[in-house]
Structure formats: C-alpha cells, structure tokens
C-alpha cells in the first residue's frame, strides 16, 4: 500500500514539474513572439505560438497569447482570425476589457464587437426568516371578547436556489425555488377570565418567486434591488397549543384548514461582493402576503377538540434575511449590434484634431 502511495506521489510530482517546465518554455515562446511582433515580423507570431496554444496553458498565458494574436491579425488585415483570437481572449478572461490608453485603437474597436457578460447565473441561498400576521377578520372561539390576543414573532429558516437571466449588465430577471420553514406565535390572555392559550404555528413552504432586478455593475460591492411575485405552496403545518402554561395539546396538522396555494408580492435588495469571477451576497426580502391563509370553507372549528383555538382570517408577511453564492455563467460571444460608435467618434475626433 505504502509503495503505491509513494509511486503515486512520485508520478504526480513528475507531472507538476513537467507542466511547470512546459509553461516556462511557453512563457519564453510568448516573450519571443512579443519581440517578433515589436520588431514588425508579424507573420512569425502565429507560427511561434501555435505549438504552445495546442497544449493546455494557464488562463493568464492564454489571454496574453490570444491578445497578441488578435493584434497581429489586425495588422495583417485578417479580420476573421483577429475576431476568433479576441473571442478566445474573452474565453480565457471573461472580464477582460481593452484600455484606450494602453491598447491600440483598432483592438479597442474590435473589442466593442464582443462581450462575455453572463446571460444566466445560478445562485444558492440560506437564511433566517420571521413572519408577521395581518388579520383580515378576527375569529374567536368565545362568545365574549374578554381575552387579549396578540400574534408574536418566531424565527424560521429558508434555503433555495435560483437562476437569473441578465438582460444587460444592470437589468435582469430571476426565478427561484425556495424551501422555507416559517413560524408565528399567538397568545390569548384572560380566556374565560383566568386562562391563557399559546399557539406555536410552524409551516413549511415551497415557493416560486419571479423577480425583476437592478444591479450596479461596478465595484467589489454591488448593491441590487428587486421586486417580484411569488407563488407559494403550503407543504405542512404543525401547530401546538399550550393552555395555562402546562396543558399541552398534541401536534395538530392544520394543513387542511389553510389555503394551500398563496401568492405574495416581493420587494428586496442586498449587496453582492465580487470574489474573482463569482459573488457572495447578503439579501433582505419582504414578502407581502396577498391571500387569506385560513381556508374559510375548512376552518379548524374546535368542535372535537378541548383546545379552544380557531384560525383568524389572516394574511402572512415574511421578512427573509439570506446569504448566498452566485455563480455566473460567462459566455464570450460576438454582439449582434456592435458598440463601436463611441470609438468611431473618438477616432474621428482625433483625426480632426490632427
């Protein structure tokens, strides 16, 4: 066994040394190609780089090599190959942008025909939530309203995944599939003059939010905001009632007494932190419940139960705080409509000035 591990390590080490030597050789080749380019011997550049390009290289090397090739083909007036090389620059580094002060104007002009911004990105999230109850009709199981009643906040949690479609660098639309466990409490004091009743109601939800988003596209920290609409499917309800502090009910399933499909309006925002080509984010979302949670046709009448609780007609709002990860799927591609006007204006402006 030990012998196998030693042989494996030796093999791995050999591979690393080999690759390292190969990259060092290609680094020299790239420097040589750059020298040929600087010397005006453009035709020699592609041939020099050809061997190294056929091997796997690191992304930095590939970016520089393809950029050199793109400039070379521009000077050789081979537009097709220049475009192909620039596309490979973006495939190596999707966030590469030309610099008018650093790069030749024809390369800048070429770059405006391409983009590598992501069309879709995937995100995953996890966080905490709490629920706010808004009563539509107060429904009491007693004939006299002597008891004081209030809803209390309880914590829940949620997790989910989503896909964003990026219309452009700022605007986009997203759809998510979230699983949430939300909870609220209800307290009634002075019930029948002297009793208390406490309810803890925990629901599990599967929700499908659809949103329109605006995101700032620059900087390490990128704030964003969105509005949306969510379809929510109630999966289960667990309710527990305690009377007079120590008489505890069994766990009830009020699912059949609630509306199983509800909708809500969403408004939210957050901050994305750029980490390489990916993002981490913190998100705060308010979900405004639109539907009555109680099913009036199947209300939980406490007619066969010793715990005198009946659902109000109520809507439920939620506040979600989530953190998560965004993985953009960059796609290097040629634009259908090149954004070259600004470059042309500058070029003409420069010519006029001369």
């Amino acid at each position, binding site marked *: 066994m030990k012998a196998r591990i030693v042989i494996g390590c030796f093999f791995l080490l050999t591979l690393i040394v080999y690759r390292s030597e190969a990259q060092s050789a290609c680094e020299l080749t790239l420097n040589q190609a750059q020298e040929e380019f600087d010397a005006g011997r453009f035709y020699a550049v592609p041939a020099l780089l050809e061997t190294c390009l056929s091997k796997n290289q690191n992304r930095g090397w590939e970016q520089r090599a393809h950029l050199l090739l793109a400039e070379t083909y521009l000077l050789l007036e081979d537009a097709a190959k220049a475009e192909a090389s620039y596309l490979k620059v973006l495939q190596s580094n999707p966030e590469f942008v030309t610099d008018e002060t650093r790069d030749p104007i024809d390369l800048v002009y070429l770059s405006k025909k391409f983009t590598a911004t992501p069309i879709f990105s995937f995100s995953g999230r996890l966080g905490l939530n709490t629920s706010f109850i808004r009563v539509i009709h107060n429904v009491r199981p007693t004939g006299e309203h002597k008891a004081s009643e209030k809803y209390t906040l309880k914590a829940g949690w949620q997790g989910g995944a989503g896909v964003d479609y990026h219309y452009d660098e700022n605007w986009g639309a997203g759809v998510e599939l979230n699983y949430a466990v939300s909870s609220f409490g209800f307290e009634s004091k002075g019930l029948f003059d002297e009793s208390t009743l406490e309810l803890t109601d925990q629901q599990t939800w599967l929700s499908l939010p659809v949103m329109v988003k605006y995101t700032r596209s620059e900087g390490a920290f990128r704030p964003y905001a969105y509005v949306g609409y969510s379809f929510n499917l109630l999966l289960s309800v667990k309710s527990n009632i305690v*009377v007079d502090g120590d008489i505890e009910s069994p766990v009830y399933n009020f699912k059949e007494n609630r509306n199983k499909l509800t909708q809500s309006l969403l408004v939210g925002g957050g901050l994305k932190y750029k980490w390489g080509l990916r993002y981490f984010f913190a998100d705060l979302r308010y979900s405004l419940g639109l539907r009555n949670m109680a099913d009036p*046709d199947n209300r939980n*009448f406490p007619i066969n139960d010793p715990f005198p609780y009946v659902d109000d007609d109520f809507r439920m709002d939620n506040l979600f705080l989530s953190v998560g990860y965004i993985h953009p799927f960059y796609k290097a591609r040629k634009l259908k409509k090149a954004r070259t006007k600004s470059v042309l204006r500058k070029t003409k402006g420069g010519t006029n000035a001369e």
Partner: protein
Amino acid sequence: MRNNFFVIVLFFLSGCDTGNNVDPVYQDYFIKYFGGAGDQRGADLLVNEDGSMILLGNSIAPSGIYTAFITKVNRYGNVMWERQLGDVNETAVDIELIKSGSQAGNLIVATNIGVEANSRIRILRLNQDGTGIDSVIVPLHENGVKQVATTVTSLVNDPGYVVSGYADKNLIQETLPVSDDNDQQDILVFKFDESLTFLGKVLNKGGEKKGAGIKTFEWDGGITDRLVVFGFSDKPLPTEASDGLFELNYTYDAPEYGIPTATGDIVGTPSEEELLATVIQTTSPNGFLLAGTSRTPGNSSGDIYLVEYNSSFEVKNLDVKIDLGRSLECVAADNTPSSGYYILGNETTLSGLKDLALIKVSYDGQAEWIRNFGTAQGEDTSAAIATLPDGRIAIVGTMELATNKKLALVVLNNRGGLTK
C-alpha cells in the same frame, strides 16, 4: 409601457384578500364557548324572531358554589349581555318566551333552589335586555320540601305559567301500588297567573315509584283552558301482565285543574323502560312529538324512542324505537324547517365518555343522518336545540375543554355541518 405596468400591478393586487372580499364565514356556522372561571354548563336555549338567542346555563365556581346565568347573543354568537340569575346554589333549567299578556315578549325562567333534597322552585321574569322584572318561589308544601322543576310553559289563552316537574314522596302519602318507602318522586305540575300568584297544582299524581312531569301545553281538547301534561311514570299498567311491574313509560294526562281525568295514555315497550326527555308541538300534522330514551332498566342510555300523537290524541302517528346500534340518550328535539325532526342527545362512546349527538329523523321515524360533536377526552353533553329563523340549527351543550367545562353554542347548517 407605463399603462401596461399599471395593468400588471393591478392584476397582481386584485388577487389580494381583504376584509371586503373575504366572507366572515365564522359568523354563520360556528362553535363558541361561554363562561368565566370554573365550570359552566349549558341548560337551555331560546331563539328570538330576530335570530338573537338567549342561553341559559349554570356556573360552578372552583369553590363549589353554583349559580345560574343567562346570556343573550346576536345571530353571530357574540354576547349582547349576560347576568347572574337568582341566588347562590340555584340551578336554571328552562326558559321560554312569554307569549301573551302584559309581559308578552319578555322571558320566563324556571330554576331550582338548593340541593336536591331541599329543592324548591323559583320562576323569574326578565326583560329582553336582561333586567329582572320579578320572581316568585313556589311555597313549601306542608308534607315535604323537595320540589323540582323540569320546564316552564307560558300560556297563551289564559296568560300565566305552568311549571312541570316532580316532588318527592312526601307530597303524596301513597298506599298501593307503591308503598311510601319505595316512593321516590311523583309527577307535579302547578300554575301561576300572570301576576305570579300561585294557583295551586294542576296535576299531582302518585302511584309510581318514579315519575316526573316533563312538559305541559295548552290543549284544545274541546274544553276551555284545558292543559295536557306529558311526563314519564313507572306506574304499572292496569293489566294483569304488568301488575307489579314498575317500568318507566311515557305518559300524558289532560287534567282539569287538579282533577285527573280519564283522558290520558301510557306508552312504551314491555321489556324496556322509556324515559321521556322532551315534547314538542309538531306542525305537519299538528300534534305532539314525545322524544326520549328507551333503555334496559339500570342503563343510562339506549335508543331514541319517539311517539307522535295528532292534536286530538286520537291517532298515534309514530311509535318507534330508532335502533342505530349506538348508546344514546335523548335530551331535546325540534321541528326541521322542511320535513322531519332534529333529535339531540348524548352518545356514550367506547371510552365511556359522552359526546353530543344530533340526529335527523324523517316523519316516518327513519334516521337520515347523525352527527357527533365533542372533545376527544372530555365529557360533553347536550342541553337544547332550536331551529333558527334562517334554517340554521343552534345547539347548546357543555364541552369539557382543556381549561374547564364550558357552555357551548354550536350553530350548524341544516345538514348538521359547519360550512355552507
């Protein structure tokens, strides 16, 4: 573009449930509990023409002291007023609307004062706003102290009140067929005039070990101001087969102010005892429905037993034991708005505890459906039933909650359900 945006926003918001588009369904069909500290038990129910309801109940404080209370609720079951009735250790049993005379529209209530061995009867009159008008305690009889009311009847033709109930053995010194030692209770019915002046006994029958007047009605039997008293008695039938057999049966008598007459009947099955619980006047055809329990002697429950007479007592339309294979005890009955009767009772479950049982019975005595209500591990009992003006059914009973026993008002649809 802007218009489209607003259309989309309106579309989404139109799906919002608000107080304007969510029906407060719990106002139509519901169960509501009433009471304060201690136990509260339901006793009776009266429905007004406007759909409001008067609930009669008894409260037992943690100290053991019991008091009667009365509550008026609107058609949604919300309390309009409530007040204590009478004194401590007083039990309310029946309430009726005063049907004629200067107090028409007000309420008459019958209560029993004191523990059973010393029980005396009080009748009280109240306004519809709960304020007391007056009350009177039935005078003690020279031979005894125990007098128990079961119901009170407001008379129409000769405004006044009749109390049905029973008295203990001391009221009538009996000879045969019951010796005084075996005499437990005798049918007792007496009358008050409109000013609550005691007019004396309407009926005071013996000859039984156990008997009680359950309900008295005015009856047009061809004689002016005739009454008919329904009850139960174990007085043996005047036949050789039943000689010495003291078995409870339904009875009725049409006495002429204290003088028993030959107008009467005893009805029941030969091998079981029949305990009358309630009597209602029927409308289709006009007559009387007697509802109670047919049971093996010694048992507290059995089967529902119904007897229906026409208004002249010449025809017995119904004489049926409804065998549902359950352990039932009849408590109350009412006419349905369409056809048939609602029978309210208690069902003893396998655990030995009681639940409320509501049975719809057709005119020919067939049970059409039965509904049970009651907490899983509590002793829940029925008290009264009434059909509301809009066809809903109102039931008053007692439910044993996790807190205490509470008076329960259950309002159901005409199929015994809690939804439309």
